[in-house]
Structures are given as structure tokens and as C-alpha cells.
């Protein structure tokens, strides 16, 4: 019995230590924790952030710019810019919103180079306030409903509508997070998503009329 009295607390301590080690492993670290390490001079950890965001940002760029060429180059510039500005990142905020903000700027510059319907920083819909309500159940239902439309008609949307659809329904960001990425009021995000869905439905109906049921 005396032996058990000593062993039990010891094994519990070992269990706690093991769990602590597991939780502080690279895989379990949050983006913000990794960013904090990079801020403190651990350059190698930046590779983890690249691993986590490379595919996501490439996908975001392809959908947003509606093209495939040069996306990798732009994404590489995004990572370089992210590293250069890493000390500007506030680790109490979400790293994903911050890195997507940098990517957004890079892709908007990409649009300017393409010279096709560039996004203006001051759009009319940022003038007023709009009441919006975000319901996760509605989003899940809509995601299924919109899947076909997004797959076939996303390219027909204006970039400002295309971007909010990509960020909300593909990259899974909330209105509030999109507001931080695009630096526009949350109500404007809601109204852009609403208008983008209307445009998508219209484009989809036109396609259906042209080619029959898709």
C-alpha cells in the first residue's frame, strides 16, 4: 500500500508532463504561438507557417484572381512580406486573418496588373451601415446549396463579390474575420455576400437556360 501511495502521484505527474509535452509539440502549437516564436528570432519556425498556409493561400489566389498562372509567385511574395512584417502582428489576434490580409493586398495588386475590374479601396457600400445576422446553420445549408453555383459561376462575379464568397464559403471565415481581412465594416461584408449570392443565382439560372440542367 505504501508503495502505491508513492507511485500514484508520481505516475500522475508523469502523465501531466507527457500531456504538456504533447501539447507543446509543433503540431499542436497554434499559429499565434508559432508567430510569437518567429518574432523572438526562431526563423526556422516560419517554415511551419508556410506549410500551414501555402495550399490555402494558393487556393484563395486561384479562386480570387480566377487564373492559375503566377499564383505561386504571388504567394511566395506574400510569405516574404509576412516574414518582413511579422513584428507588426499582434499575437492576441488571429494569425489567419492577418496573413489573409497580406494575401488580399497582394492579389488586389495582381488584379491591377491584370487591369480587369480592379477593387477600389473606397467602394460605395462602405459608406453606410447595414444590419446583418450570421447564422452558422444557414451558412451550412447555403454552402451545400451554393456548391454547384460556385463551381460553375464564380468566375462571372465581380472581384469584390468573388472574394467574399471565397473567404466565407470556401476559406470558412466569419463575417467579422472577413471584415478584418478586407478592412471594411462587418455590415458591408454581409451586404456584399448577399449581393454576391444573388449574382451567383442569376448567373447559374442563365447557364441552366443555355445548357439545360447542370
Amino acid at each position: 500500500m505504501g508503495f502505491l501511495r508513492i507511485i500514484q502521484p508520481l505516475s500522475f505527474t508523469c502523465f501531466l508532463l507527457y500531456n504538456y509535452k504533447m501539447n507543446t509539440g509543433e503540431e499542436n502549437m497554434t499559429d499565434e504561438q508559432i508567430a510569437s516564436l518567429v518574432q523572438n528570432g526562431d526563423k526556422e519556425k516560419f517554415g511551419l507557417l508556410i506549410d500551414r498556409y501555402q495550399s490555402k493561400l494558393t487556393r484563395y489566389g486561384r479562386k480570387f484572381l480566377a487564373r492559375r498562372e503566377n499564383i505561386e509567385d504571388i504567394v511566395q511574395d506574400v510569405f516574404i512580406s509576412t516574414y518582413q512584417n511579422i513584428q507588426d502582428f499582434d499575437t492576441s489576434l488571429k494569425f489567419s486573418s492577418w496573413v489573409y490580409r497580406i494575401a488580399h493586398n497582394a492579389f488586389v495588386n495582381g488584379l491591377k496588373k491584370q487591369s480587369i475590374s480592379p477593387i477600389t479601396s473606397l467602394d460605395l457600400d462602405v459608406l453606410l451601415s447595414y444590419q446583418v445576422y450570421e447564422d452558422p446553420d444557414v451558412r451550412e445549408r447555403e454552402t451545400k446549396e451554393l456548391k454547384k453555383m460556385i463551381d460553375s459561376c464564380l468566375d462571372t462575379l465581380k472581384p469584390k463579390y468573388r472574394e467574399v464568397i471565397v473567404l466565407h464559403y470556401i476559406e470558412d471565415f466569419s463575417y467579422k474575420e472577413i471584415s478584418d481581412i478586407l478592412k471594411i465594416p462587418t455590415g458591408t461584408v454581409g451586404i456584399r455576400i448577399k449581393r454576391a449570392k444573388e449574382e451567383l443565382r442569376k448567373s447559374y439560372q442563365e447557364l441552366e437556360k443555355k445548357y439545360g440542367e447542370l
Partner: protein
Amino acid sequence: MENFETKQNTTEKIEPSALEKIRSGAVIAHSKNYFRLRVIALILVISLTFLVSIFLCSLVMFNLRVSGQAALIGFGNHGTLLFFLLFPWKLFLVNAVLIILSGLLLRSFRFGYKIPVLYLGIMFIIIMTIVGIAIDQVNFLHPVLLRNANNNSMPLFGGVYQRTERPPLYIENIYRGKIISVDTDYFVASIENGKECCVPPAEYKIILPASFRADKLKIGEFILIEGNAKDDTIVATEIEAIQEPPFFEDLDQ
């Protein structure tokens, strides 16, 4: 939440290229101080823009008040039209540009882009107008600057200040004066319309408009008159009280 496109492994790995540049020192991170300085510079620029904007707003108020131009609105349609024609539009436009610039700069901060642009602009205009009116009412800053302008020791805003003495006085049929005596259907005023005036500085007999009561007038009060001058008489169509214009050359002295 279901994603439409799962993680793609088909993309080329970027890591070696970007990370190699970082490892080799070809790409370096900006220091914390760099960003601190940038924020400080941004705050300074916004504050400066805001202060200049408030100054210009109070200057517009001062301009309208001391020139007597604000009283033109009381002269009916003709007066209102004159008011808008003589309004210091250049100052107003410079101020509008500064407000837009401040709004754009504020969008660098989180609270700046969370508030819709129109509300941010209205907030700016309200604060600016209230502070501008307060500065004008204290009546210290602008009179001092006006004195400097008249001594030609102020190159930047000198012209703007000197202009406050003239309008709307160079416009024909608008006269500025000080009441000397009041009778039942007329009063006597010393008219001083500035250097570019249509009538010489002198005492004039002002015939009151038919509906105007003489007991409204007080001796020593400053007034703006709309009317037709002939010899030493002005037949007034409109009369409005104004504040004492700076550097009014009193003919009695």
C-alpha cells in the same frame, strides 16, 4: 463546415525558396521599433491633419462673421445668393480634402474601418464644427493673426485674413456701417466699405424700409445695409445687425 476544395498537394512547395531567402538573410524582418515609429508617424499626420482642419473650419466661421457675410442670409434670395457666391469655397474645399485624407488614414486602425465611412465623416465634421465655432467665439487666435496679416508679417494665410475685411463690401449695393443717430424713418450711419468701395467713407442718411421699425436700431451698433446710394443718402431695402468688424475706421475719430 465542408470545404469545396480539399488541401491541394499538387502545388509546388514554396517553403525552400521563401525560407531559404529568410535563412540566408536576403529577407530580413523589420524591427518592432520600425512599426512603432510608423504608428507614431501616422498618429502625428492624422493629428496634424485634424488640427489644420479645425483651424480652417474656425477660419471659415471667422471669415463669415467678421465680414458680415453671414448676415447676407437675412437679405432674402438675393442675399442668400450673394452669401453662396462670396462663401470661401477654396478654404472649404481644402478642408473637405483634409477630412477625406484623415478618414483614409484612420482606416489604418481597426476602429477606423469598422465604422462606415459616412458615419466617420459626419463624426469628423461635427467635432470639427463644434471646436471650430468654439475657437471663433473665444475670439483670440484669429484677431491676432488678422493683425499680423495686415502688418504683412504672415505670408501663408495673410491674403485669406485680409479678405475678411472686404467681402461683401465690394459688392455694389451692400454697405457696412456704424449707427450714429436714429430717427423715426431714417438713421445716420458712418459707412466704411473698405478700400475697394463704391462710395467714399462718410456719414450717410439711411432711409428705412417701409416695414422696418426704427426702435430695433441702437446707436453704436454695426449694421449691414442693402440699398441704393445717391449722394449722401441710401434707400435701404434690407438691414441686418453685425458684430463689430475688425479695423473698422470710425469716422468720428
